[in-house]
C-alpha cells in the first residue's frame, strides 16, 4: 500500500481531503504554539540566567493586557476548530438520501456484511466508487467500532440499537477496515478490507453472489418463517399494520404520539414489540428479543424496506 515511511493513510473518499486539511490546520496551530513556548522558555533561560548566587528576578507581577491577549487568541482559535469540526461532523452524520444501503453486523470477532439483494460477505466490504454508501451497523454481543482510515470514517456498533455511517469512495483500491473499540481476545483480528470497485465491476460482483454462499436465509424467507406474513398483510386487513411503505414514514402510535419509522424503530418494533404500538392495533405481537439474532434482524429490516403496495 505504501513504500517508504507512511505519514498519511490513503486518501480515498469524498471527505478525506477535507479531513486532511483540518488535520494540517490543527497541526499548524500546535506547531506554532509549541515552537513559540519552547523558543521563549529556552531564550529566557539563557538570556536571564542567574549570574550571581544572590541575584533575584525583576519585580514584575503581571499584565492585564497580556492576560487578555493570551486568553482571547486561544479562545478564538479554538472556536474556529469547534465550528469547522462540528460542520464536518454533521456532514459525516447525515447520509445523503440517495445512498445505497449496506448492513454490517459486528460479532466477536468478525464483520458480517449484507448488500442489497441479499448478497453477503464476511470481513470484506465491496463497494462501488462515486456512489454514496450508507452503512447501518449493529452488534451481536459487545461494542465494536467499524473504522476505515482511508475513508476517514468510523462508528461504534452498539448492541441493542442500530447506528449509521456513510461515505463515498473515490478511488479504486483495497483499504483496511479495523475494529476500533476493544472487544476482547481477538480484537486485533477483527479486521478486513474494503474493496472499492468501478460501479460495473461492483454490479458484476453482486451478480456473482458475493464472496460467501448465502447460508443465512433471506429476509423474505425469515418474514415467512417467523410468521410475520400471517398478520402483517400488505393491504391493511391483517391483525398487524401493513408494512408496505412503512420505512421512513410517520407512524401514529396508540399513545397519540407520532414517530418516524427509522431503522431503530423497526428494530424495536420487532425485538420489543410492545414498546410502541401502532394506533388502532392491539399489542398482541410477541417480542422477538432473544429469538432473532442481529444478522437476521438486519435481513428482515432490509426486506421490510422493499415492501411496497
Amino acid at each position, binding site marked *: 500500500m*505504501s513504500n517508504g515511511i507512511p505519514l498519511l493513510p490513503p486518501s480515498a473518499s469524498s471527505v478525506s481531503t477535507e479531513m486532511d486539511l483540518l488535520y494540517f490546520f490543527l497541526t499548524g496551530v500546535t506547531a506554532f504554539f*509549541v515552537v513559540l513556548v519552547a523558543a521563549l522558555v529556552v531564550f529566557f533561560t539563557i538570556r536571564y540566567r542567574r549570574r550571581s548566587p544572590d541575584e533575584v528576578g525583576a519585580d*514584575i507581577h503581571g499584565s492585564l493586557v497580556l492576560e487578555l491577549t493570551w*486568553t482571547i487568541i486561544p479562545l478564538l482559535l479554538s472556536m474556529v476548530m469547534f465550528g469547522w469540526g462540528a*460542520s*464536518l461532523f454533521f456532514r459525516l452524520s447525515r447520509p445523503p438520501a440517495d445512498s445505497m444501503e449496506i448492513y454490517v453486523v459486528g460479532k466477536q470477532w468478525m464483520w458480517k456484511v449484507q448488500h442489497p439483494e441479499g448478497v453477503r460477505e464476511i470481513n470484506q466490504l465491496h463497494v462501488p466508487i462515486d456512489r454514496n454508501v450508507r452503512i447501518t451497523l449493529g452488534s451481536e454481543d459487545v461494542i465494536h467500532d467499524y*473504522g476505515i482510515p482511508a475513508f476517514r470514517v468510523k462508528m461504534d456498533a452498539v448492541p441493542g440499537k442500530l447506528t449509521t455511517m456513510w461515505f463515498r469512495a473515490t478511488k479504486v483500491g483495497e483499504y483496511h477496515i479495523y475494529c476500533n473499540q476493544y472487544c476482547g481476545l481477538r480484537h486485533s483480528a477483527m479486521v478486513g478490507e474494503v474493496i472499492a470497485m468501478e460501479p460495473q465491476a461492483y454490479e458484476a460482483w453482486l451478480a456473482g453472489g458475493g464472496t460467501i454462499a448465502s447460508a443465512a436465509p433471506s429476509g423474505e424467507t425469515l418474514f415467512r418463517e417467523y410468521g410475520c406474513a400471517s398478520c402483517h398483510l400488505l393491504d391493511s386487513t391483517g391483525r398487524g399494520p401493513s408494512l408496505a411503505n412503512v420505512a421512513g414514514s410517520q407512524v401514529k402510535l396508540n399513545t397519540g404520539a407520532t414517530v418516524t419509522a427509522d431503522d431503530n424503530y423497526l428494530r424495536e418494533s420487532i425485538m420489543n414489540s410492545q414498546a410502541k404500538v401502532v394506533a388502532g392495533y392491539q399489542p398482541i405481537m410477541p417480542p422477538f428479543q432473544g429469538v432473532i439474532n442481529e444478522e437476521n434482524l438486519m435481513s428482515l429490516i432490509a426486506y421490510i424496506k422493499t415492501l411496497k403496495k
Partner: protein
Amino acid sequence: MHQVVSTPVRQSYLDAPYGVAAWLLTKDHKRIAVLYMISIAIMFSLGAVFAAGVRAELLTPKGDLLSADMYNKLFTMHGVVMVFFFLVPSIPATLGNFLIPIMCGTKDLAFPRINLLSWYLYIIGGLIVLATAVNGGLDTGWTFYTPYSSQSSPTNVTVAVFGVFVAGFSSILTGFNFIVTVHRMRAPGLTWFRLPLFVWAHYATSLVMILGTPVIAITVLLVGLERALHLGIFDPKVGGDPVLMQHLFWFYSHPAVYIMILPGMGVISELVAAVSRKQIFGYGFVAFSSLAIAVIGFLVWGHHLFLSSQSIYAGLVFSFISMLVAVPSAVKTFNWTATMYKGSVTWESPTYFVIGFMGLFTIGGLTGLFLATMGMDVALHDTYFVIAHFHYIMVGGAVMAFMGGLHFWWPKMFGKLYPEAWAKACAILIFIGFNLTFFPQFVLGYLGMPRRYYSYPDELQVWNVLSTAGATILGLGYILPMIYLTYSLFKGANAPANPWGAKGLEWTTASPPPTFNFEAPVVVDEPAYNYRPSGEVIVG
C-alpha cells in the same frame, strides 16, 4: 516572610520514633507521604513492566512474543495500575501530603487518622487489583466498558472493580482532608491570596476528587453487581443501555485527567517561580485557572462519546465546552513563560524538568484539541493518536512535573542532596525517550492504527519500532533517579534548610522538618514568592 528562627534541630520527623509499627501507625502527614511514595514507586514500576511487555510485543507486526490473551491483560493492568494506583495519588498523596500542611503553616492535615486510613485503603485496593492480576488477570481495558466487562470478559472483573472501588475512597479521603485543611487550618495571616499556587492547584484537584470519584465508585460497583448478579442495568437484552456506563465512567474519568495534571501544574508554578527567583506572573490568573479547569473539566466528558451513538447535539455542547477548557491551560502556560522573563534563572536540575514539562505539556494540551474537534475525532477516535495525546499529558506532563517536584523538594523531605549531574541527565533522558516513544504514535494514530491492537499491518512497523526504542530510553530515564535518589539517602551531603534560595514556608523550617513542622507557631505577613520585598504587591 516571618522567619521562624531555626534553632538547632533536635529531632526531625524521620528520627523519632523508629520501628515498623511507629511508621505503619503514624499520623504524621510527612511519614504518610513517605509511605505513599514507596507504594506508588512500586506501583509505577509494576505499571512500567506491563508497558514494557506491550511495547516489546508491538516491535513486530505479528503477534509473536506474547499470546493475545496475555497482551490484553498486560495493557489492561498497565492502565489500571498507572491510572488508579499511580497517577491519581502520585503528586497529591506524596508531595501534596507532605507540603500542604507545611505551606499552610500548620502542624498536620485536619484529619491525620483519616489520612492514614486513606493510605491503607490504597494498599488494600492495590492488593486486590494485583491479586486479580496474578489470579487469571483482567482483560477489559482500564475503561471497563460494558457489556464486554459485564458479560463477555472471561476474567475476574468483579474482584478487580472492587479493588478500584476501594482505592477510590482513598482518593476521596485525601481530597476531603486537603479541602478542610486549606479552609480551616491556615496559619494566621495566610490569606487565600498569599497561598502558594501549589496549594491552589491541590485545592482544585481535591474538588475534582470529592465530586467525581464517588461517581466512578458507583459505576464500577454497578459493573461488578451487573456481572455477579446479571441485574441487566447495562444489558441491552433486557432494555439496558451500555452507553450509560460510558457516561457515568467519563463523568469521573475525564475530570480524573485533571486530578492527574492539576497537581503537576501546581508543582510547575512553584518550580518556575523558584528557579527564576521571581514573583509568579499573573498570580490571580494562575490561581483561578486551576479552579476554572476543575469546574469546566466536569462539563466535557461527552467528548469521549462522539461516536458511541451519543446524540450529535449533546456532542456539540461537549465539543464546545472542551474547547473552553483549553483556555485556562493556555493561560497557565503563558504565565509560566512570562515568569521567566527578566528572572534570575538557575541552571540547576529543577529547571531542566520545568523546560521538559513545558514542551511536553504544550504538545499534549494542543493535541487534545484535535480530539475535541468533532470532525477530526472521527478519524482519530480510539487510535494511537489518543494514546499519544494522553501520555503527553499524563506522563509528559504529570510525571515530568512529579519528577521535577521530587527533585526540588527531595532535600527538604529527606535532608539530603542528590547528585546534580545525574539529575540533569535523568531529565534529558526522559525528555528524549518520551518524545521518541510517543511522537511516532501521533503519526500511527492518523494512519489509523487502533489502540489495544496486538498485531498490526506491516507498513506501520517502522513507527512502532521507533516507539519501542524510545520506550527503552524512557525506561532508563526512570530507573536512574530510583538509583541516585536512593543513593543520596545514604551517601548524599546534608541539605541546608533552603538549598535553592527559594521562598515559601517549607524553606523556613529545617531539612528534614521536625515532627510538628515548625519550631514556633507561624505567622505570615507577606504574599507568596516575595523575592523583592520592596513594597506591597498588587496581585493580578
